[in-house]
Structure formats: C-alpha cells, structure tokens
C-alpha cells in the first residue's frame, strides 16, 4: 500500500511539474509576452549608442519581430508602412535622440484567436532625457497589434495606434 501511495504522489507531482513547465515555457501567451519584451528592449536606445553600426544592427534585429508583410497603421494623418523591409528601412534611417530612450510595454493584454494567431493590446511607454535640459521626458500611447506564429516564433503582422481620448 505504501508503494502504491508513493507512486500516486509521484504521478501527481510529475503532472504538476509538467503543467507549470508548460505554463512557463510553452504557453503561447507567455511566449508572446517574452517576444514583446525582447522587442521593447530592441527598440530602446542606450544614451551612448549613436553610431551607424548600432543603428543598422538594431534595424537588422527588428526583422525577427515582424512578418514580411506587416502592416503598420501610423494614424489618420500619416501613411502606413506595408512591409517589413519598409519598416526596417525607416528605423535604420531614423536618428535616435542624443540621450537615447527607453521603451517598455505595460498592461499587455493578449487574446488568442487560434493556435497560431493572437492579438495584443498594450500601452507603450517611452522615457528619454530632454536633449537641452537633461530632464526626463515621458510619453505613452496605446497600441493594438496582431501576431502570428511563423516558423516557431511569434511575429507582428499588424500594428495600429489606439486613441485614448478621441478628438472631435
């Protein structure tokens, strides 16, 4: 009886370990959050990083986070970006502020549409020092992104800003 009891306890423990391992490593929501966290880190620019090499390397890393046919809506007054190459090119051509900036995604909410598609809704926070005064500057915007699992990695297929306060 004692052997049998130990066996059942071991099975339960093994199931619990498997469940939590799945939750930690293979849960799509967690994988998407991890991917978005890495994207935020890639979008962040350290204060001493202004060289062309850094900029091009950052733009190259961004390819890993976007689908080839990504569509980025920039709002009603600006034209959208309709491919990963255009997006990466725009980032490569952009000069970051002298003091760098830090990008973080907060309040990330993920909803799975299927095994391979999902949507994420979050607030993007940007912190940067004012180039003239050195005082910290802060901005935040809401963003909604569509994601898909392609070749084992979750990539962004669409991105659009969300208006918190709607102007007339």
């Amino acid at each position, binding site marked *: 009886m004692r052997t049998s009891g130990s066996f059942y306890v071991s099975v339960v423990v093994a199931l619990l370990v498997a469940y939590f391992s799945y939750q930690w490593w293979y849960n799509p929501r967690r994988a998407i959050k991890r991917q978005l966290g890495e994207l935020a880190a890639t979008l962040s620019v350290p204060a001493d990083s202004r060289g062309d090499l850094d900029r091009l390397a950052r733009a190259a890393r961004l390819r890993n986070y976007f689908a080839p046919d990504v569509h980025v809506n920039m709002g009603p007054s600006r034209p959208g970006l309709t491919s990963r190459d255009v997006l990466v090119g725009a980032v490569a051509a952009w000069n970051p502020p002298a003091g760098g900036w830090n990008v973080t995604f907060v309040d990330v909410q993920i909803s799975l549409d299927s095994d391979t598609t999902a949507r994420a809704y979050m607030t993007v926070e940007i912190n940067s020092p004012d180039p003239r005064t050195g005082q910290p500057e802060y901005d935040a915007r809401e963003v909604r992104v569509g994601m898909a699992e392609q070749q084992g990695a979750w990539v962004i297929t669409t991105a659009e800003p969300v*208006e918190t306060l709607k*102007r007339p």
Partner: protein
Amino acid sequence: MKSLLFGPNPRHTAIRVAVLVTSTVVVFGVILLPVRLSGISMEPTYHDGGLNFANRLAFAWRQPARGDVVAIRMAGPSVVYVKRIVGLPGEHLEITMGTVIIDGVPLAEPTVVYKAPWNVSAVTLGRDEYFVIGDNRAMTAENHDFGRATRERIVGKMLF
C-alpha cells in the same frame, strides 16, 4: 530578544501585522491608485512630478460629474491621463476662442487661469462619453491631449 522582536504578546503583534498588511493591500490595491503626475497639462491645479491618488470607489455610487478631475486609463491602470471633465453624456460641446460652450451656453471654468484661443469643432457626446481637458489652456491645442473618453476608461476621481 524574543519579546523585543514580537512584543510581550506575540499573538497580538501577529494580528496587528496581519491587519496592517491586509488594510494596506486593500487600500492601495483596490481603493486607491497611486498616480505620479507627469507633464504640465493640469497646471496650475497639479504640478509635474507630484504624487496623487485616484479613488476607484468615487464613482461606485454616482456617475462622474462636470468639474471632477479623473484618472483615465490607457490599456490598463499603469498609465493614466489626469483630466477635468467638462462635458457630460449627450451634451453638445464646442470650443470657440478658448471658451468651452455646452449646449450653447459658455462654461465658467474658475480653475483655468489663461485661455489660449483654441477652436474645436462641435461634437455631440455619446451616451457613455465624457469630454475631458486639462486645466492648462495656455499651451497650444496640438500639444495638449484632450477629447472624448468612454465611461469604462474612467478609473476614479483624484483624491487631492
């Protein structure tokens, strides 16, 4: 040593600690939302860098009213706008030369010190929409975030 750490009656000390921890969690996790103010759009009422709290229960028993300074969430409560309600659901609102006009009547705004000549086209607010603006109207309208916010975005009323 034991009595120094836990007092003469450790059981009572444990109860006091439990009550303190529970009330802190309830007050700051459920009732009050700490808000670190950033920006100048609510000057002179609130200053950049100030600390305040949004009372999440303020609108549990009544609806937001004109003049209330409220916290409006973005994707979640980690980042909120702090603005004053000037327009209520169903009202017709426009801003002409800096004056907010509600249903054809100019709104008295004693908290606004200087009004730059903003012009905002007329809008009729939906059934669950509030029109919010900051108190600092000396800045340009382009640099000031304002507009319609739905009721579900209003997290609470600023405490101080």
